């Protein structure tokens, strides 16, 4: 503890990010290919859930359609590779960011006009719209089979599972840092003020709808980036990416970690990726498990599993009111 105290507080974040980065970069040296794949998946979900949590955890808006932006990112990359023949990941990535930005701005504009149940159902409806679109425009999207996606190239290097892992890791660290900056900025505090009380926020002069819109777009772009990485990881895009059970997965990831904690979605994503690979090996009824977990969390653990455990431990062992003998 003494060494920790001698480090100035403002270095905590860079140091922990640096350590995280070192761990992530050295991970492939010790891990099998499958573990690398799983961790890539976990980090992609972490990016997605971090973005989702801007909206859910920090702004207090519950969306049931965030698979749409993941899907938009994935389909942008997948279709540009497979149908247009663009192989350079830099361009593909930029394209995914732009399309997810545009589409989340458009849909977000309609959705943030409404709150609570209306908002939730509108996001759900628009999400399903993309799902149907992926089926109906079969000559472009390949219908229910989807399209298989060849490896793209990053600065001329073939982006196989390993290089993709590094790209995911680097992007994850950058986006994690950016998310931390955002939630602690005046902008992030504004979002939290809106979450706590939209009416009061409006009274102190915050343009609530506009900030909710910004938050929607931000989470849409994070989802789009996650999608851009998802397509090459699975080398395949398919309509189920847009389905509402996929939206449920990001919800599950965020909830299991705890949407009131900054790192909750990241923890949730790691748990999710490993849990899912384990559960799907034993049962095909994954949606059942997913739905049951969401229902149980909603009923019993309103702060998420990790979040509830964290606050329990904090209250039990680190509470300042406990007087030591």
């Amino acid at each position, binding site marked *: 503890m003494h060494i920790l105290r001698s480090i100035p507080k403002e270095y905590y974040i860079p140091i922990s990010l640096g350590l995280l980065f070192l761990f992530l970069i050295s991970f492939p040296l010790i891990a099998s290919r499958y573990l690398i794949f799983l961790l890539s998946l976990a980090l992609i979900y972490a990016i997605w859930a971090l973005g989702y949590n801007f909206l*859910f955890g920090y702004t*207090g808006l*519950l969306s*049931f359609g965030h698979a749409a932006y993941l899907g938009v990112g994935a389909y942008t990359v997948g279709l540009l590779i497979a149908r247009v023949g663009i192989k350079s990941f830099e361009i593909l990535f930029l394209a995914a960011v732009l399309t997810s930005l545009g589409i989340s701005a458009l849909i977000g504009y*309609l959705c943030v*006009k*409404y709150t*609570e*149940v*209306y908002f*939730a*159902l*509108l996001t*759900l*409806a*628009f999400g*399903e*719209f993309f799902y*149907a*679109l992926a089926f*109906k*425009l079969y000559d472009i999207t390949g219908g229910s089979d989807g399209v298989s996606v060849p490896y793209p190239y990053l600065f001329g290097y073939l982006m196989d599972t390993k290089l993709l892992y590094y790209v995911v890791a680097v992007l994850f660290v950058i986006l994690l840092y950016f998310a931390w900056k955002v939630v602690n900025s005046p902008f992030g505090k504004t979002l939290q003020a809106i979450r706590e009380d939209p009416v009061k926020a409006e009274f102190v002069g915050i343009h609530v709808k506009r900030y909710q819109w910004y938050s929607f777009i931000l989470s849409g772009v994070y989802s789009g980036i996650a999608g851009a990485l998802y397509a090459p990881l699975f080398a395949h895009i398919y309509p189920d990416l847009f*389905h*509402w*059970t996929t939206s*449920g997965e990001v*919800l599950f990831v965020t*909830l299991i970690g705890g949407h009131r904690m900054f790192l909750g979605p990241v923890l949730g994503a790691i748990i999710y990726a490993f849990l899912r690979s384990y559960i799907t090996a034993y049962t095909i*009824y994954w*949606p*059942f498990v*997913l*739905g*049951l*977990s*969401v*229902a*149980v*969390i*909603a*009923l019993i653990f*309103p702060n998420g599993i990790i979040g509830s455990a964290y606050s329990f431990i904090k209250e039990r062992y680190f509470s300042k009111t406990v007087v030591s003998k």
Partner: protein
Amino acid sequence: MLSTLPLFILNGLFYAATLFLIASGLTIIFSVAGILNLAHGAIFMLGAYLATLTMLTGDIRLIIITFIIVPFIIGLIGLGIERGLIKWVYDRESEYQLLLTYGLSLVLADLVRMMFGPQPISASFLLRESGVIDILGVTYPVYNLIVIVVALFVGLLLWLFLDRTRLGWIVRACSFDREMSSALGVNVGLIYAFTFFLGSALGGLAGALIVPSTVAMLGMDVNALIESFIVIVIGGLGSIRGAFIGSIIVGLVRSFGIYFFPRYELAFIYIIMAVVLLIRPRGLFGREYRRV
């Protein structure tokens, strides 16, 4: 074109009939209990699958009874869900209510998959047996006409119930002001439970009615939920009249869309929804939404 016009209209009304039943169940539960039941689509699907059990036997008396038994069973399931789970979240933030019903929806849908398997089940016995009829210059299945009439009849009963009976008044009173109703001696919890029974039964009836002319398949739950939601958005959340008009609009647009622009049929419905939302945010017949 002109000669097939009645066909489109009839098809549209047929869609509208089932949509109206599903949407009115959803809207009654929402307006009284304040819960937007995302599991309502799964309830509808469960009704359809349960109905296939008797429809496949081909016993006409059994099939007729199905239309009473299935809504009753589904209503009881809705009642059980309300008493067992939803009861506990009335006072919580709406996010948790939505999360709970969303979770339930996935669980119910997967239970259906466990019990009935992933293959669509076709049980068109009733459609075949009832034959076709020449109406307005087109040949049309009698069964689909019966469904339209049944939906109209149920809508009429629903209106009579809510508008002319004492229990209906109490239900509406609860939807307007929960605390005041409670202060006047209404057992609000019982009314909520009854509402879930009624709403789910309507969903179950829609499921049973749709089976003979289409199929029971996985995924019909989400479609039904989204379409009935669009109906409600157009008509206004919490309004039976809105659900009626909204389902006719959506049904007709869908039926014409499928014929003329099969690939963009869905887009039309969404465009109508977006336009209604932009011009009349509370829907055509919606009243100001407030937490009761």
